[in-house]
């Protein structure tokens, strides 16, 4: 009888989830792999890979990407780690506000930052023009490598900040006191004690920054100009003016996956070496800083955060400027808002419909998978767990391309539908949500569920009445972060959308590429407002107030 019970509803879910992953992840991945090794004549070939590596025009993009990615990772660490250290060790005036700003920076779509920086420092940017008029000098060019680096660094250092802040909160104050006691203080203590203690987190943050920087294509597309990077190449090969070249795009995608997978492995191996658990009984308490040092850390904090937030502020400002055609003109009004919303009347409802469905699906699937992985671990759940983590190392545009290749022909045609957008968002977001749900569930002792069962509750009832409510705080705060990443997602959606399924982020992108900066600014402001509201809801629900991506 108990044996029979094992084949309960969970078994149905195993099969359903496994099948869904097979259809919507493995099959598309297979399609992309297949396309990458099949020649025009239908035979097995490596010609596309050879083409990529033999022509400098293509292979150069790889070197460019590595340049951008590695420098971005280094710079975000150099900026983010000290910022987190100052923020958590010392009293900084206005710290709550600063944290909100940093989180907001991390949540905006990178290409919006890119286009705002062009507005500020580009050839006709306000700052450029201002300096030129004032001094006659022309400041260095923002386009190309420097611009990409600037935008990505300012976009991604918040991740390092948030991760490292979390780690610092787990350091027991007595460790620092012991270090002081042994004569290791100040800068020396930072490098000898604090950084090593945060090393696992720093590695995790580096990987995240690396993946994001490597996969981001909105930024280089807008600001890169001649500096061609890898993700842009995938995109242009797939959708570019030169016409669609599935096989070549597929080959480049495979290369991209291999590279991110390699880095993932390296990070895993490294963090195993540094792995240890910490749990602070007496967390670090912020101390007031003194004298010159106090001035310095305040200046540093405000400067970095100000610089990172500047583009968003400027966009808000721009959104109220009057426009005529593509140009800004005197005076302020809401006309950019009214026009842009009218022109893209589907975008806002689409954002809520597509984002909403994706969010619900992500949360439900993540809870179920987390439950299976933590409480019913077996071969199938391990397989599901591994599969669900795959998209973590697959660049967003590749997910998009793979889905198109798999579902643009019979038996299952999904391209151009809401469904394919939702599926893409689910695939992309699930690894994160599953990980956080697993973490939440692992903190709930199994005895609580056993207590419920011994009190006569069925397994289903225990799950819904005990497990889910206990997870709910964590789930809700996780869901809100998912929501924000879903509504700001660009790299997958841009490959899958059409005029009927356009979302807010895509609409902004479209306006930017068309040069309608006023409209783009208006919609970007709407998006920021939506993010702020979501964040406020998050703050209300999340006990720890900590954000994990």
């Amino acid at each position, binding site marked *: 009888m108990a044996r029979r019970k094992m084949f309960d509803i969970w078994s149905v879910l195993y099969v359903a989830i496994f099948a869904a992953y097979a259809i919507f992840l493995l099959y598309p991945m297979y399609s992309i792999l297949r396309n990458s090794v099949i020649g025009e004549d239908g035979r097995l070939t490596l010609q596309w890979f050879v083409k990529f590596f033999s022509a400098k025009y293509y292979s150069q993009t790889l070197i460019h990407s590595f340049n951008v990615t590695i420098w971005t990772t280094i710079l975000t660490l150099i900026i983010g780690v000290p910022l987190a250290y100052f923020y958590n060790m010392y009293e900084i005036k206005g710290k709550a506000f600063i944290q909100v700003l940093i989180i907001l920076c991390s949540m905006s779509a990178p290409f919006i930052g890119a286009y705002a920086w062009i507005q500020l420092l580009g050839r006709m940017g306000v700052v450029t023009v201002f300096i030129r008029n004032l001094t006659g000098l022309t400041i260095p060019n923002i386009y190309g490598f420097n611009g990409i680096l600037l935008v990505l660094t300012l976009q991604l250092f918040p991740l390092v900040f948030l991760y490292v802040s979390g780690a610092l909160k787990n350091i027991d104050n007595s460790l620092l006191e012991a270090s002081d006691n042994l004569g290791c203080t100040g800068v020396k203590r930072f490098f000898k004690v604090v950084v090593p203690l945060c090393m696992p987190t720093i590695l995790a943050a580096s990987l995240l920054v690396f993946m994001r920087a490597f996969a981001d294509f909105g930024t280089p597309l807008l600001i890169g100009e001649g500096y061609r990077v890898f993700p842009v190449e995938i995109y242009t090969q797939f959708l570019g003016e030169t016409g669609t070249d599935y096989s070549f795009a597929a080959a480049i995608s495979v290369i991209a996956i291999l590279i991110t997978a390699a880095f993932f492995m390296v990070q895993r191996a490294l963090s195993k070496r540094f792995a240890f658990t910490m749990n602070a009984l007496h967390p670090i308490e912020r101390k007031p800083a003194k004298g010159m040092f106090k001035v310095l850390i305040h200046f540093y904090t405000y400067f970095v955060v100000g610089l990172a937030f500047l583009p968003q502020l400027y966009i808000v400002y721009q959104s109220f400027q009057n426009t005529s055609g593509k140009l800004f003109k005197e005076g302020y009004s809401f006309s950019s808002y009214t026009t842009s919303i009218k022109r893209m009347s589907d975008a806002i409802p689409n954002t809520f419909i597509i984002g909403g469905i994706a969010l619900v699906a992500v949360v439900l699937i993540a809870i179920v998978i987390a439950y299976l992985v933590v409480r019913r671990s077996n071969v199938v759940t391990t397989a599901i767990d591994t599969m669900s983590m795959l998209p973590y190392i697959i660049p967003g545009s590749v997910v998009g391309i793979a889905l198109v290749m798999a579902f643009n022909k019979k038996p299952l045609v999904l391209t151009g539908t809401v469904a394919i957008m939702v599926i893409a968002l689910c695939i992309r977001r699930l690894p994160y949500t599953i990980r956080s749900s697993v973490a939440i569930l692992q903190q709930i002792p199994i005895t609580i569920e056993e207590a419920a069962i011994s*009190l006569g509750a069925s397994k289903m009832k225990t799950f819904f009445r005990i497990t889910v409510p206990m997870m709910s705080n964590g789930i809700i705060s996780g869901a809100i972060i998912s929501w924000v990443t879903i509504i700001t997602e660009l790299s997958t959606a841009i490959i899958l959308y059409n005029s009927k399924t356009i979302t807010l982020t895509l609409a902004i992108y479209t306006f930017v590429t068309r040069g309608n900066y006023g409209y783009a600014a208006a919609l970007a402001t709407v998006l920021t407002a939506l993010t702020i509201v979501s964040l406020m809801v998050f703050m209300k629900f999340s006990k720890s107030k900590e954000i994990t991506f």
Partner: protein
Amino acid sequence: MSVNIKIKNAVKRYGQSTIISDLSLEIKEGEFFTLLGPSGCGKTTLLRMIAGFNTIEGGDFYFNDKRINLLDPAKRNIGMVFQNYAIFPHLSVRQNVAFGLKNRKFPRDRIEAETQKFLELMKIDQYKDRMPEKLSGGQQQRVALARALVIQPDVLLMDEPLSNLDAKLRVEMRFAIKEIQNRVGITTVYVTHDQEEAMAISDRIAVMKDGVIQHIGKPKDLYQRPANLFVSTFIGRTNLLEAKLVVEAGRARLAFPGGFELAMENVRDECRKSQDVIVSIRPEEFVIADGSGAGLKTIVDSSVFLGLNTHYFVHLETGQQLEIIQESKIDEIIPNLSGIALSVKSEKINVFTADGSVNILKGVSDDKTAVGEV
């Protein structure tokens, strides 16, 4: 309704490793039965097999005459109290206690009445609308107990329910649990590795080691006539001395190294043959004779005065150290380095075979042997 629990030839394996190889046990109706043993010996494992949260690899489990091996844990009508309380953090105290009743679909007024009754019984009535995180450890444990008892289970299972509490509260809750159990009269299986707690609370105790039951008996039996060497060292403190059992003309005596001899009247007949033995002498079973008398010759190393009793730490000529407890006397405490002779209360000490497996004295009462032929 209370039940008796019979376990026959139970086997538990985790993967390749066998935790319990062949365990039989009978727990009487309404009894307070304790599983006692060192950490990792399989107490929790056995308890969770009874509860239905662990699979059973072999053997039979019965509640009365009903085999429960495959019965759904939710249908076993068991009350469980966990070490970490396992209180539902998102439900108030009252909702926690009412949870089991709601699952049983009792009418609402009955649920309210029963809940109220047990809240009062456990003296947590005044906290009923609080959330659990606002309760102290002891109060949470009372909620856990009320929640387990309110469903009128056939069996109450408790896994180290007091180990998270501080020492004073632990003693207090010990009596609260015992008193409630007495009043409700429910068959209770209690797990602990604290032998003092087990002695204080249990009707009977099963001492376990490495998944094997060593001795089942009343606290007094375990302490005074332990079935083997392990039980004698695990329950209470004791001194172990190697000696020879000498049987001449049907009379047995113990011969200690150093020449001291002690006549033993209560050696079991089948063990009455000359052999090497291990003698277990509890600290209070020594009698300090004056320096001239016959006895074990020892030198005092140190002493501790504890009011009621005085502890002496002494060593034998062989260098072996012994602990002695004497009721404190009004005279001087024996100074360090004094030579004293120790005789022993021969009717109280225990004698084991050289391998420690069997107590060779009469009067061992071990229910372990009685199980099996049920």
